Every structure is written in C-alpha cells, then in structure tokens.
C-alpha cells in the first residue's frame, strides 16, 4: 500500500523569510528614479559674430538676485510670463504680402513685438547670485510657451499635438515610413516655432 502513502509536505515557512530578505535588500539599494526634466540645447562654443537684431525682435528677460523678474524693463509676476512670451513669439508683425509674413501666427501684429517666430529671440539675463529654482521656473515657462504654440499649430495642421507626435516617434515598433512622416512633421513645426533663447550670465551687484 506504499503507493498511497502521502509524501511529506515541504515546509514553505522559511520562503517568506527569504523573500523578505530580498525585499529589504532591494529597498535599501534602490531608489525611485527621477529622470525627468527640461531639455535644453545650449549653443555651441562661441564663435563671436555680431548680428543686427531689431529691438522689436528681442525679448529681454532680466532676473535679479532676489528672484524678481523684469520683462522688457518692467517688473512682472512670473505667472504673466508665459502669456507675454507667447504674445511676443506669435505676434506676426509683418503685413501679408511682405517678406517674412507669418501666415500661421495668431498674434495681434503689435508694432513693438516680434516680426515672426523665426526672428524672435528671447534674451535671458541671469545674475550669478540668482537661485537655480527661479531660473528653472523661467525656463519652464519659456518651454511651456513654446510647447503651447507648437501644439496649437500642430493640431490645426495635423490633428495631433506636437508632444503626441514626438512620443509616437520615440516609441519603439513604429514602421519606418510612418517614422519618416512623423520626422518631417516634427521638423516642420520646429521650424515654424524655433526656440531661440539667449542666455547671458551677469555678475551684477
């Protein structure tokens, strides 16, 4: 009758202990990654050239060391910045028919703001004493302004936001033809709203 004898059950009680050990090991050695942030392309090493930039095409941002923001010579709250930057870039200050006319700009055509997004340059002056966190806030707002403009034009042209297209482009498993189409669209929009940010580090006192 030995065939029907029950096999002794393996004691699984210590399995939990082993798993706990592993768990604690991972808790100690691991950290939840924060790998998100603002992407920036810095300009290449200086090859000093002087270029005539019309005053209307230059949007001056000044930070001071106490963390206040001055836009075109006036103190401005940070919450206004994004709106002002958008208005500046998307101004479209050239009348239809003239060269440099911006057909997709939704701005008011103000005579003091930029001619077209290709010419619009943002100059950011940051003193050495300023806090990094304030700088990040300004960068965030600038990025936000560009993102909003790009998304708006992208929706009207292609029916998808700029970010969605970029996401699809970076995702694996996209067919090559689709990738090429996306790349062309992304490039088109980047050319419509190029990011031109000039950063100047100053030591003011």
């Amino acid at each position, binding site marked *: 009758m030995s065939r029907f004898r029950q096999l002794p059950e393996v004691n*699984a*009680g210590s*399995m*939990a202990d*082993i*798993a*706990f050990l*592993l*768990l604690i090991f*991972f*808790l100690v*050695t*691991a*950290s*939840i*990654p*924060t*790998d*998100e*942030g*603002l*992407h*920036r*392309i*810095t*300009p*290449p*090493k*200086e090859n000093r050239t002087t270029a005539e930039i019309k005053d209307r095409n230059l949007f001056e941002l000044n930070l001071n060391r106490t*963390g206040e923001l001055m836009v075109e010579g006036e103190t401005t709250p*940070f*919450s206004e910045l994004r709106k002002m930057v958008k208005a500046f870039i998307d101004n479209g200050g050239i009348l239809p028919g003239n060269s440099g006319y911006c057909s997709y700009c939704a701005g008011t055509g103000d005579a003091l703001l930029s001619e077209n997004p290709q010419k619009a340059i943002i100059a950011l002056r*940051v*003193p*050495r*004493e*300023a*806090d*990094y*966190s*304030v*700088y*990040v*806030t300004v*960068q*965030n*707002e600038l*990025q*936000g302004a560009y*993102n909003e403009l790009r998304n708006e034009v992208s929706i009207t042209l292609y029916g998808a936001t700029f970010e969605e297209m970029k996401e699809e482009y*970076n995702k694996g498993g996209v067919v090559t033809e689709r990738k090429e189409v996306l790349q062309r669209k992304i490039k088109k929009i980047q050319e419509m709203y190029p990011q031109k940010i000039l*950063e100047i*580090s100053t*030591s003011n006192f």
Partner: protein
Amino acid sequence: MAKFAKKKDGDLPAVSTASLPDIVFMLLFFFMTVTTMKDSSLLVQNTLPNASEIKKLEKKDRVIYIYVGKPTREYQSVYGTEPKIQLNDKFASVGEVGSYILAERAKKPQELQNVLTTALKVDKNANMGLISDIKQELRKVNALKVNYTTYEGNAFNNLQ
C-alpha cells in the same frame, strides 16, 4: 460513522501562512521593477526644483549625470556649506567637468557618443553662477544637450 472523526473542540486551526511568500514576492517584484540601483551615493543635498513642462530621459545609457548642491551634513565640516559639484563619487571643481564628460563619453559605445545628454541634478538652492560655469565647461567639450532634472510639479512652487 467512524470515517468522520469528530474534531476536538477548542482547538483552533493554525492560520495558513502559505500565501505569505506570494505576497512578499509580489512586493519584491514591484520594487524591482519601479526602482533602479543607486549608481553613486549622493554627497550633496539634492532637492530638485519643480517643473511642469518636463520630458522623460528615455534611455539610461545615453545620460551623464552631474550633481550639484550643498555637501551633506557629514561632509560640511570638510567641504563647507557652499554648493559643490559631484561627479561620480567625488567632489569636483568646475575645471574637472570637461574632462569628466570626455571620459564618460569615451566609455560609451561609438554610436551613442553623439547623442549623449548631460543631466544636471541641481539642488534648488544652488546659485546660478556655478551652473553657468558648468554650462560653459559643457560648451567647451561640445556637450550641448542638457537636461535640468526636476520633479514634476507646479513650477511656481519654486519661488517660495
């Protein structure tokens, strides 16, 4: 009737712990998937600022990290309280950033050397002077893709 032996009353059956390993393993796998190994221990305080317009750093192997912040408490007696740069596991001066980037770049495979991003993990209380010095160094070695690593959140919280 003898087949159904009567249970002795008053004897509580033991709670089965057989599912405990399963639960713990589930936790273990959760932590294994959402976390990564620390590659270098932080010598500096590193509370990142918040930003909302953030993008994920997609591929780990294309990133070079630079940490900036005040030395943590145990190092303050030696290194002071001024913000410092940390490269790998050491404090470094601004001048060493360029050679560090070049060394890290040389370690990466050939096809990735042109697409590297430098992630600046900078404490929110650091000042911009140090950052712009680092950026100048990065420009010298042509490391132009920079990522200011931040937490996701409202950027205006930084101002308080």
